[in-house]
């Protein structure tokens, strides 16, 4: 069975055109608000705005929050551990990008 929509769907680039609210980030990642709040205080996510109801998350938070969810749920890593794992993964990504610039595979 296959269905097809006739008009191409128009997407919005999350990283450039959108800021997600706390609720939207929770819906997109299936993380509880409680977890997201903890990650913000742990420095895993850095939203704009002061109070949780004013928080606006960038697209980068979407990727980090999904990863944080997995680390928390399946590997049972606590919030400081999640923060550390994400920092290390970021560093590996930076180094890999540098290798790539130099033309290494």
């Amino acid at each position, binding site marked *: *069975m*296959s*269905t*097809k*929509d*006739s*008009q*191409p*769907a*128009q*997407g*919005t*680039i*999350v*990283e*450039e055109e*959108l800021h997600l609210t706390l609720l939207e980030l929770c*819906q*997109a990642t*299936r993380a509880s608000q409680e977890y997201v709040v903890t990650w913000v205080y742990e420095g895993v996510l850095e939203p704009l705005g002061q109070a949780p109801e004013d928080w606006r998350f960038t*697209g980068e938070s*979407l*990727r980090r929050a*999904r*990863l944080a*969810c*997995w680390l928390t749920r*399946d*590997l049972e890593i606590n919030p400081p551990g999640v923060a550390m794992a994400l920092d290390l*993964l970021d560093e590996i990504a930076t180094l*890999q*990008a540098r290798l*790539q*610039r130099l*033309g290494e595979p």
Partner: protein
Amino acid sequence: MKFKDYYETFGLPRGATQDEIKRTYRKLARKYHPDVNKDADAEARFKELGEAYAVLKDPEKRAAYDQMGNQWKAGQDFQPPPDWDAGFEFRGDGADDGIDASEFFEALFGRHANRAGHRSSGHARGEDHHAKVLIDLEDAYRGAERSISLRVPVVDAQGHVTLAERRLDVSIPKGVRAGQHLRLAGQGEPGRGNGPAGDLYLEIGFNPHPQFRVDGRDVFIDLPLAPWEAALGCSVSLPTPGGSVQLTIPAGSAAGRRLRLRGKGIPGNPPGDLYAVATLSLPPATSDSEKAAYRTLADAFDFNPRAHMKG
């Protein structure tokens, strides 16, 4: 639909303890998580692990699966026997939201496998869905349309669940970069009752390119030069994802010199830059006249490339 042997996924015997299952899952999941492992098949492997773990970590699901699974082998054609899960209570518990499940999993354990009587009434927003889409670097320069295929669980009149394929044409905006997400409002899971549909998030990735390397919005290309081109300067036609451009190579360009073409990277505000990285290609000396040319070079230069080496 094929039967899936979740124990085989973990390489564990059926009698494995819950602790062994947890330990094995964690070990394999750490290895295959797509943010850690860049192999092409890591993501598929990681999904399989997640699905197997969703069943085996839950004693109730595992017991129901074991009771039925004794009679099947991996890859066999499979239909769930009627009332295979009689006496177990796990359907639609929502505990597995977020895993990208196979048809096999959906039919047995999926939220959509709820029988009519069990279905909760009321209204709820559909879940947000996630998928990955690979585009060519050129698509990011020009914008493109991509047809992607999504799997959606569908319940038939008898309450059987199958995964239907849904084609969705998506317009890829110019200037999108690898790792960014597109949000397609209302293209996620349909809502229940009068609830609104969820959104679909597409993560963008680039297909590997034989010539160009990408870092964020900047694009790199190796530019091979003959020794005399590098020494004397020249003008070359350089391919870029947006079309070729004429590039002047200054005299005395050493290997590794980066020539920046401002704004010729991935379009945007600001656009990225394109870097041509000079490399030197030495022509082999085969014929007599080619050998003579190299000898003339040797005579003309007082040049020792190993002058900095001691001893």
